[in-house]
């Protein structure tokens, strides 16, 4: 027995050293590694880059042209429109479109998602807001729903009891549209801090896509036809101001799609791939174009997309080749490392890594 006790002690020490020593090394040597702010400009048809350097911020494009601060504002008029308005420099028209603050504001959006938002504990209870209450402000409902193996159930918060009537109503509505329980994905933004509510997008047992919301106390369910062979894997309901798109989606092959609001058309975006469980995404959109940035350990990929037809305008890559000497050395000193947490998820578990630091 004492042999096993000793073994356990040695095992414990080794595990702790594999964890703590690389951590300390990293803590002492790591330096912040910031990617420069990059945005596509429909004015110059190129990417505009804000690069921090020793002499302050350098503003340039991929062609090597350097811009002053106010020049930079004007090549990104949709992004810096408030500055341009303040300077009285906002053009009246651009690409044939009449510009005014309201239009710009409505069409601008920013969407971000990082892996740790997908990889985290899920409670499995969802508030379904009233989408057209007739009031301007959204309010949180007095119930929440969960989807079981054979029905959707609404639980009244005050009484902590199932609202049988409402549950049946929605269960029947879903079944009528061909929903096969249980749900695989339940995606929505259950918050009142948005302009309007689109309820939830769901996929069922057979990976069919559905849109469900509550309209004037009644159920609204719609089955969304998606091309054969596409298996939806992640859904991000957008609820942007302009109401043009309903959601971003990815499929099992990590292809990125956009789902349009009115037509429920699923459009494949010209993005090589996006895996929400290990890559971060940001989409900065405006009247004319979207800049999609997909980043992971290997670097950043940028896709400029035409906001009208979702075609690719320009693509660029910024590989992460800035592995520092200390990171390389660290990889040799600590060929095997242990961590319990990760920036890519919210779980605590043992993860062993080998090779260079990143």
């Amino acid at each position, binding site marked *: 027995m004492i042999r096993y006790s000793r073994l356990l002690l040695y095992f414990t020490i080794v595990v702790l050293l594999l964890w703590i020593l690389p951590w300390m090394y990293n803590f002492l040597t790591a330096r912040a590694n910031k990617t420069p702010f990059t945005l596509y400009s429909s004015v110059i048809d190129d990417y505009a880059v804000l690069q921090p350097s020793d002499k302050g911020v350098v503003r340039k494009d991929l062609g090597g042209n350097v811009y002053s601060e106010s020049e930079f504002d004007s090549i990104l008029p949709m992004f810096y429109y408030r500055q341009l308005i303040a300077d009285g420099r906002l053009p009246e028209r651009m690409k044939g479109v009449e510009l005014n603050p309201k239009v710009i504001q409505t069409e601008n959006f920013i969407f971000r998602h990082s892996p740790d938002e997908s990889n*985290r*504990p899920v409670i*499995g*209870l*969802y508030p379904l807001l009233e989408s057209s209450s007739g009031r301007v402000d959204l309010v949180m409902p007095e119930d929440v729903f969960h989807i079981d193996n054979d029905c959707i159930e609404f*639980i009244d918060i005050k009484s902590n009891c199932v609202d049988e009537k409402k549950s049946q109503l929605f269960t029947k509505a879903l079944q009528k549209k061909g929903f096969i329980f249980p749900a695989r994905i339940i995606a929505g933004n259950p918050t009142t801090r948005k302009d309007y509510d689109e309820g939830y997008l769901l996929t069922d047992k057979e990976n069919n896509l559905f849109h469900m919301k509550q309209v004037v106390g009644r159920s609204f369910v719609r089955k969304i036809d998606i091309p054969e062979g596409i298996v939806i894997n992640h859904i991000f309901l957008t609820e942007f101001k302009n109401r043009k798109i309903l959601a971003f989606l990815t499929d099992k092959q990590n292809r990125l799609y956009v789902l349009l609001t009115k037509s429920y058309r699923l459009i494949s975006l010209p993005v090589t791939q996006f895996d929400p469980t290990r890559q971060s995404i940001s989409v900065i959109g405006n009247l004319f174009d979207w800049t999609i940035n997909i980043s992971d350990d290997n670097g950043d990929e940028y896709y400029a997309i035409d906001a009208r037809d979702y075609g690719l305008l320009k693509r660029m890559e910024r590989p992460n080749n800035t592995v520092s000497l200390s990171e390389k050395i660290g990889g040799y000193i600590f060929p095997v490392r242990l961590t319990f947490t990760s920036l890519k998820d919210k779980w605590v*578990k043992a993860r062993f890594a080998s090779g260079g630091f990143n």
Partner: protein
Amino acid sequence: MLKPILYKEWIKTRWYFLLAILVSIGFTGYSLLRVNRVIGLKGMEHLWQVMLERDVIFIDLQMYIPLIIGILLAIVQFVPEIQQSRLKLTLHLPYPHYRIIAVMLLYGILVLLVCFVFNFIFMSVYFIGILAGELVKHILMTALTWYIAGFTGYLLTAWICLEPTWKRRILNIVIAVCVLRVFFLSAVPEAYNSFLPVLIGYTSLTVLLSMLSVYRFKTGQQD
């Protein structure tokens, strides 16, 4: 020979046991009171909403309580054994050495179990009345990590207390602190779900470490 050993442990720790129950119930009661106040001031909807939207579980106050209870139990139980080498008396009993220690540790684990289960039931009963099953599970699974840390803290502290030399004892303390740190790496509720079996398994194994300390005592390791 189980009975007299348990009897001795009981006499040593009964007041502490009572105190541990009272204090832990006090903290649990206070957390539940805070929940009650949120309900009273802002309504049940607000409570659920905050839990769902902001991932608040309202019992964070209890995070370190099981750990502290576990560590103190080991101190109350094992420090009198090592003071003045009193362990010699215990190991002189006509009963196998490691089995004596195992029974003592078993007693401690039972005491903690009673104390923790009491709290768990208290919380469950309260929360089941006002929250959906998912939220109750969310709270209890989060708390479970802290309660397991209580057992680990107990067993590691027993190991530290029984160790006969100070040099080694300090090393043990450093190791124990690092091991216990693992239980508190994330404030995200339910972050440990998939890791809990590993933590429970490791915690059960740490019973072995106390045996190593006793072995070192028996072979006469000293400062």
